[in-house]
């Protein structure tokens, strides 16, 4: 059972910010995470502020110079289906396609995925390697927060009272190879036991990897560029990056997997990503 609450669907950002200053109020996007939390009694809001009436959250642009903006109303299936995004930044579409189920993706948003701030959030690793910024608005005006400073802990984001996310901005993606891989317990839909996103740009010698579900937040590996420039042998590079990943994460035992299993899978999946994007 979901406990009673009040509901409002503002037509302007100003009204939404005002409503969100109410005690114990939450923004409602697709509701695929929030309504489950409410059913479980993890969240007991007094007011839900439905943000699906806000035109300002609609933006979706792809520009080779300015980069990509993804408004807070953008659903995961929109990302899967968008041909321009597939061409310019396929890793986001790839990640969206393996997140939740088809029905859920019709409602679920990319912004809701990072606001929920699950360590296993499947859209997050790609945003980390792409250097995404989260644009928020609130009673004190606009803020731009790098994704790594936005997701600050399990189920915890950097929003302050009355704030909401307007959009995510991604700098122009380099002409690089990118990939996202997800390890789950079953073939159907399931949260990630481990997920990894990677980007490799041979020209500039850039290599970025982000590992999810193995620490309080996704972890962007540091020092990958140096290893990439130094190491020619692909097999060796994979092992070195996997060692680096294992020294950067702090996995735990939970219902989905043991910490040991996660460590083993991180090695497998990091090597797999490296061989895919660095060859």
């Amino acid at each position, binding site marked *: 059972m979901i*406990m*009673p*609450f*009040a*509901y409002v669907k503002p037509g302007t950002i100003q009204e939404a910010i005002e409503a969100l200053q109410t005690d114990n109020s939450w923004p409602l996007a697709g*509701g695929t995470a929030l309504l489950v939390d409410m059913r479980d009694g993890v969240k007991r809001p007094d007011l839900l502020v*439905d943000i699906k009436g806000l035109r300002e959250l609609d933006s979706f642009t792809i520009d080779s110079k300015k980069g990509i903006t993804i408004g807070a109303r953008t659903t995961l299936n929109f990302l899967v289906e968008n041909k321009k995004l597939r061409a310019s930044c396929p890793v986001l579409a790839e990640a969206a396609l393996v997140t939740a*189920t*088809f*029905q859920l993706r019709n409602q679920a948003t990319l912004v809701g995925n990072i606001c929920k701030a699950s360590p296993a959030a499947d859209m997050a690793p790609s945003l980390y390697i792409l250097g995404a910024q989260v644009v928020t608005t609130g009673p004190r005006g606009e803020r731009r927060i790098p994704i790594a400073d936005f997701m600050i802990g399990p189920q915890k984001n950097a929003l302050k009272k009355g704030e909401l996310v307007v959009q995510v901005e991604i700098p122009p993606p380099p002409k690089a190879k990118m990939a996202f891989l997800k390890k789950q317990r079953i073939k159907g839909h399931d949260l990630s036991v481990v997920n990894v996103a990677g980007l490799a740009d041979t020209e500039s010698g850039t290599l970025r990897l982000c590992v999810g579900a193995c620490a309080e937040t996704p972890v962007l590996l540091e020092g990958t560029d140096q290893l990439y420039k130094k190491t020619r042998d692909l097999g060796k590079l994979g092992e070195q990056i996997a060692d680096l990943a294992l020294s950067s994460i702090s996995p735990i035992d939970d219902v989905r997997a043991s910490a040991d299993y996660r460590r083993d899978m991180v090695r497998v999946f990091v090597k797999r990503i490296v061989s895919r994007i660095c060859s």
Partner: protein
Amino acid sequence: MESYKQEIDITLRVNGVEYRDQVPAHMTLLQFLKEKLFLTGTKEGCGRGECGACTVIMDGRTVNSCLVLAVEADRSKIRTIEGEAKRGRLTALQKAFIDYGGTQCGFCTPGMIMSGQNLLERNQKPSRDEIVEAIAGNLCRCTGYELIIQAIEAAASKKGK
């Protein structure tokens, strides 16, 4: 808080019929369909987005009606299993489910039909992989899926059995 309401007026179309009602904000679309409109064909399995038994089509897209609030469906067009057969005539997909044994206990069937029908309306010649992906959010404890996949394939190619 006074200005924000717990009871909200909604107007929506379900299977072509317009309904106006006042609903508590915490009522799900699934509860509204079953308890207010007595459209009991749509099923509740898990109530948390896992099983797809509650799948309906909202403005042309499938949703888990257990995770949509009735107020969120305000001004939308909903299709449920009750609206599929027209004047007692089953759709090609419904017939195929019967012909191929795509339904056993029947609990998943209303959701499966809505997901399958929505797929066929988006994609007239779905591949097997596309069918599997489209129903991956609909769990079935009886059939093992194979007969459901065959039924959808048959409806797509309009071949009866």
